[in-house]
């Protein structure tokens, strides 16, 4: 992309999740020039990996689709995928941003026919499914990926697979000679919306995520529940592929803990309550859900949701943070150990499957951040004069649900628009 297309009246949005897309669209629909850069081959972010949304239990894909339609319709918004920001210099109204664009090895000719994927043999862990399944070395990240264009995994370059993919494509879309590009842009304001990542469950040693196959995370559970996911929507135990009907949820896994993330990740209580409804949806009355918690933090209006789940006779609430997990060697059932606070009963409860309601941390760590901004202790960006015209949106600002993330995105768009209006005012 040539430098000329961005000016100091352009807004750069970093991160194409629900927050970045929302902020970019709000600004573009106000007539501002917007460039949206996304690190992955497709936009949508974490929301595209959810099966259903709380509180309404609608399908996230639906909300994304509306945003995609708005994106396609808007001439002011330009999207760059497989792109990261490596440096930011300058001041409000005049930033120089360095971008690194990774090659997709597939150009605009791609019709998403999938012939390349069929030709390639090599398989890799599917990132979209948190490694629960495999994908080919030529792949579409997921069904609803936008742009609808395949990607060649750089690991097949130089192998016969790369040539096979190229030969299979009837549209001359595969270009194995694409090179990484460094691009410098001038922009007036920046919206930072790189979102969150799940806390590394391996670090929670007593829970044995690294040792016991039937201990999984809440994000993996979302993928399992999705009919288009790696298990076709069935809740299966990784150890033996059997259906899990007695499922335990451990709250605050990695959150509210001085040994891990100090903050409350805020959405995981709601995520668990939501996930118990997946069990009812799949099994009717034939399941058991057990929620181990310190306290349930279903904030304001979503407390109704909490109350509804509490009325479900198949769902049990145990007020206790699980101390440790062991495994029954024979059945491979995880056994949860702890003491509850309602009577101080010591328990050792076996379950078919354990879901860790994993905490959220910022996806770009403070020490790797390409610009000077202020962070709080947890690594989220705090609004501050010193940040200049760099505004955080969504989960770059805090652990937020989609509703709040989008509110935060709109606010950041307004801030950015004000900066651009000031620049336009002085420049005429």
């Amino acid at each position, binding site marked *: 992309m040539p430098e000329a297309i961005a000016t100091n009246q352009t807004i750069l949005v970093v991160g194409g999740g629900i927050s970045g897309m929302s902020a970019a669209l709000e600004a573009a629909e106000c007539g501002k020039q917007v460039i949206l850069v996304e690190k992955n081959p497709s936009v949508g972010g974490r929301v595209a990996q959810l099966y259903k949304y709380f509180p309404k239990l609608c399908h996230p894909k639906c909300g994304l689709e509306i945003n995609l339609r708005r994106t396609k319709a808007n001439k002011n918004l330009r999207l760059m995928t497989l792109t990261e920001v490596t440096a930011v210099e300058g001041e409000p109204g005049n930033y120089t941003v360095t971008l690194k664009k990774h090659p997709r090895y597939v150009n605009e000719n791609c019709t998403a026919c999938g012939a390349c994927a069929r030709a390639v043999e090599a398989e890799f862990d599917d990132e979209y499914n948190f490694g629960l399944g495999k994908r080919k070395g030529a792949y579409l990240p997921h069904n609803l990926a936008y742009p609808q264009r395949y990607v060649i995994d750089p690991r097949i370059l130089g192998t016969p697979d790369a040539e096979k993919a190229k030969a299979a494509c009837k549209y001359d879309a595969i270009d194995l000679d694409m090179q990484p590009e460094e691009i410098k842009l001038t922009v007036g304001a920046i919206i930072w919306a790189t979102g969150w990542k799940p806390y590394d469950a391996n670090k929670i040693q007593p829970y044995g995520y690294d040792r016991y196959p039937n201990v999984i995370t809440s994000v993996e559970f979302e993928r399992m529940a999705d009919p288009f996911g790696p298990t076709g929507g069935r809740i299966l135990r990784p150890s033996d592929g059997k259906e899990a009907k007695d499922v335990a949820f451990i709250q605050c896994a990695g959150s509210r803990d*001085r040994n891990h993330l100090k903050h409350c990740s805020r959405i995981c209580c709601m995520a668990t309550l939501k996930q118990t409804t997946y069990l009812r949806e799949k099994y009717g009355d034939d399941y058991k859900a057990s929620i181990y918690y*310190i306290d349930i933090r279903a904030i304001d209006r979503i407390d109704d949701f909490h109350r509804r789940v509490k009325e479900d006779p198949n769902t049990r609430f145990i007020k*206790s*943070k699980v*101390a*440790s997990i062991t495994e029954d060697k024979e059945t491979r059932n995880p056994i949860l150990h702890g*003491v*509850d606070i309602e009577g*101080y009963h*010591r328990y050792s409860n076996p379950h078919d499957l354990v879901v860790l309601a994993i905490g959220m941390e910022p996806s770009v760590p403070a020490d790797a951040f390409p610009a000077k901004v202020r962070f709080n202790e947890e690594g989220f960006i705090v609004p501050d004069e010193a940040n200049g015209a760099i505004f955080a949106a969504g989960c770059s600002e805090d652990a937020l649900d989609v509703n709040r993330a989008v509110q935060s995105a709109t606010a950041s768009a307004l801030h950015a628009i004000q900066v651009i209006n000031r620049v336009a005012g002085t420049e005429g």
Partner: protein
Amino acid sequence: MTDYNQQMIEKYRENFLKEVEHNVEEGEWVKMCMQCGVCSGSCPFGPYWEHPPQELFMMIRAGKRDEVLKSDSMWMCTSCYNCIARCPRGLPITHIIHGLATYAKRLGLAPKEQPTAKFAQLFWDNLTKTGRVNELKLGLALYFKVGEGLKTALENKDLGLAMLKAKRMNPFELVGGHKCKDIKGLHAILAKAEEIEERKIGMKA
């Protein structure tokens, strides 16, 4: 009951949490507990505690002074530090537990026949006498004063023999035994420490 105990009851009437905060080592941490239960669930001796740490902390806040201080729970702690390592709020649980035990003893409320408490006293007396632990005397005292005498001694005979063989224990320790170079100096240090401690308690009381 000692006068000291009565004095404290009067001073902190109805506010046991404050009493703990003022008089127990690391006691000011108690209010930080969020009752998650990880400490109780992580303690290898957990099932043997009458009230596990989490419950003790709640009882302190609920003002259950007698139940806490007379409990033998604090004496179950083996200082394994599992709870400290895992407490999500960073409470120095092991230290608080020992602090509570010490305070209970100071008040004269600690259970009299509690084996760990008895052994702790034996160990202290044994150590401070010569500045060196006399394994033989300590072992025998443990068997005969805390354990069931000859029966316990015989049960542990193989261990004793192994220790003799490995030169970890010396039969001549029964008479005299080894000591540190400057016992007088050691006793002076201990006396001074006790004096400082007394003053500290007096100041708070």
